[in-house]
């Protein structure tokens, strides 16, 4: 067992597909939101829509940590990165994300020292190796990633490394889901819950959705069969009149989450009163910042940052896409002015972004292809 290929089996997919079709009430349209950009990526990458009846629409949610970083924060990070004493470190995903003054890649082309890392621990390693430079880690990600940042800060503190700091942009998913549930313009039938966030926070935090809003939520894995099964489980709940939090991804997600990880995050970080989400605006208690106690590791405290809000480009409809109100192709600039090589919005940059996933993987007429390959 590799816990990968087993969940990419076309035969099982056909069987599930038939079940899904049989669970759909004739004439009823279903809208499920996959909260997580990882799911969006899987859906397009494997062509999962080919297994869904036309009456089921998968709506892409706000769960791409790259897509929700506002332009001003990118500018702030670049401002830090441009200091000659600084080595900025970042996940590859952030490199092309445009702020108001260009992306990290644009910045390196102009001389900033920005390096891709696979892990925050790699950034710490660079700090150890280059003691004369200030190494800043551009921390992004949801609850999945925050514990790794926290653990790295704790290790830096334990080792007394003094030239390492974190520019903290970690966000939390629950307030964003709540914002979407409260927004008037979207009717959803259920949620495909974020599997990897749930490895940390567990399944309980979603119960308000099932209880308070009456929407079923299935925490789902990231292989295509995981998602297909989750759709099946959502339809089953609807058919049976239930609205519960279920865990399709029990092989990985413990119901209670990872206490050790939550403790590490809580030690190092605290909730911000509010944080701006790209496209969604300010959301209360939706992000993390470094605690006073770890001020020495907080790039936001160590470096002057301009902290300017940058308005999204006029044409940008990322907010509507992130809320699931618009499909990517419904944005007026999609695929013409906004493409992966010239992204206007962040959803076109990250491969988890709904626009990028649709553009890169889904930009064709299924109907014509079906005809051509008949």
């Amino acid at each position, binding site marked *: 067992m590799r816990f990968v290929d087993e969940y990419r089996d076309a035969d099982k997919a056909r069987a599930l597909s038939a079940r899904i079709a049989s669970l759909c009430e004739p004439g009823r349209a279903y809208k499920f939101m996959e909260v997580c950009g990882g799911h969006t990526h899987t859906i397009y990458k494997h062509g999962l829509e080919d297994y869904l009846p036309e009456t089921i629409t998968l709506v892409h949610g706000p769960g791409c940590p790259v897509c929700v970083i506002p332009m001003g924060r990118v500018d702030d990070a670049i401002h830090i990165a441009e200091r000659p004493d600084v080595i900025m470190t970042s996940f590859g995903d952030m490199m092309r994300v445009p702020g108001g003054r260009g992306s990290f890649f644009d910045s390196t082309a102009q001389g900033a020292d920005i390096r891709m890392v696979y892990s925050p621990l790699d950034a710490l390693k660079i700090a150890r190796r280059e003691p004369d430079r200030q190494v800043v880690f551009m921390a992004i990600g949801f609850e999945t990633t925050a514990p790794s940042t926290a653990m790295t800060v704790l290790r830096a503190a334990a080792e007394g490394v003094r030239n390492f700091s974190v520019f903290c942009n970690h966000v939390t998913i629950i307030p964003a889901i709540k914002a979407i549930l409260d927004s008037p313009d979207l009717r959803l039938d259920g949620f495909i819950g974020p599997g990897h966030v749930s490895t940390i926070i567990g399944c309980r935090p979603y119960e308000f959705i099932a209880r308070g809003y009456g929407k079923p939520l299935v925490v789902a894995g990231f292989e295509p069969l995981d998602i297909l099964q989750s759709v099946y489980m959502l339809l089953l709940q609807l058919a049976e009149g239930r609205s519960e939090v279920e865990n399709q991804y029990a092989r990985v997600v413990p119901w209670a989450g990872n206490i050790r990880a939550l403790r590490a995050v809580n030690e190092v970080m605290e909730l911000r009163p509010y944080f701006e989400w790209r496209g969604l605006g300010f959301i209360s208690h939706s992000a993390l910042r470094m605690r006073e106690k770890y001020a020495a590791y907080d790039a936001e405290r160590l470096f002057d940052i301009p902290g300017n809000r940058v308005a999204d480009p006029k044409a940008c409809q990322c907010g509507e896409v992130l809320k699931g109100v618009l499909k990517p192709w419904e944005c007026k600039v999609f*695929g013409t002015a906004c493409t992966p090589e010239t992204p206007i919005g962040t959803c076109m940059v990250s491969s988890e972004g709904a626009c990028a996933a649709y553009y890169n993987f889904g930009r064709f007429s299924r109907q014509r292809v079906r005809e051509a390959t008949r």
Partner: protein
Amino acid sequence: MTETTREQQVLERIDRARQRKARVREERITMAHGAGGKATQTLIEAVFLDAFRNPLLEPLEDGAVFGAGGARLAFTTDSYVVSPLFFPGGDIGDLAVNGTVNDLSVCGARPLYLSAGFVLEEGFPVEDLRRISASMARAAAAAEVSIVTGDTKVVQRGKADGCYVTTAGVGLLERDARLGVAHARPGDAVLVSGPVGEHGVTIMLARGELDIEADVTSDTAPLNGLVAALQAAVGEEVRCLRDATRGGVATILNEIARAAGVAVVVEEDAVPVRPPVRGACELLGIDPLYVACEGRMVAVVDGDAAESALAALRGHPLGAGAAIVGRVRDDPPGLVLLKTAFGGTRIIDVLVGDPLPRIC
């Protein structure tokens, strides 16, 4: 208007946008311009092709084919800036020889003579230069070509990365086959000559920054023998050949679809990928189809000759892992589609820049 119709209109609008003349929007060169993807294509078309335009350059094939003094010749060049210079399975030297041998081979030419231009960084160990030269000499002998002219420049420390090599090559076209990506037509079969992505993964891991270990070695190899074997078997049926380098197999398939105005439909299951390449790509969140090879080629052959072509490739040591990976269709023109192992369909597009390691 139904949603499907609206979507359809958007797709057509996009298609038109993509047909437009390439324009470099950036003011400065970025790494993406060298990654072999969209940015590279745009740079080449909007800057170089625009300036140098002539009928031989225009097809932007792997090499130019022309007549001179009664002979039909192929001519190509490539610059090599790989880091690290030495890696499992090869080094910049055999890479530089094989790369140019391959570009000539996929033009249908027998590679004859190579040139080598070196840009050396002050302080570069002479011993490393000897190793590189020895490896070039071995590669040249293996490919039965001679390095007949060259040049050496030295730049100040900090103005290069040890050693850059530019090879150019001249080859002779002995048969009349006119190969070209524009020649693919519906019904043709698409083959790859072996497992993909091994060179690129080897280089990524050899840099050491990712702390990942795997038993992968570069696939760098001269393809002239393999091409000869294929031509001997199904010479008339070969539409085009391309060696997969930067941008990987995906980029080549897109060049074919775009140049010939056809659809290329690839079966994900059929694309050979060795487990460690798959594992590294999973860890890094990248797609092996975009990862560089240096000794693999894509061949488009008449559909009826597919099996003979496959047999010919497999009969050669460098083609033992060859596979028929897809077919050419007429619609939708210009697109490369993947039938996923999961049974779905998606596009394989050209990347903007390098495939970036991805964590989310």
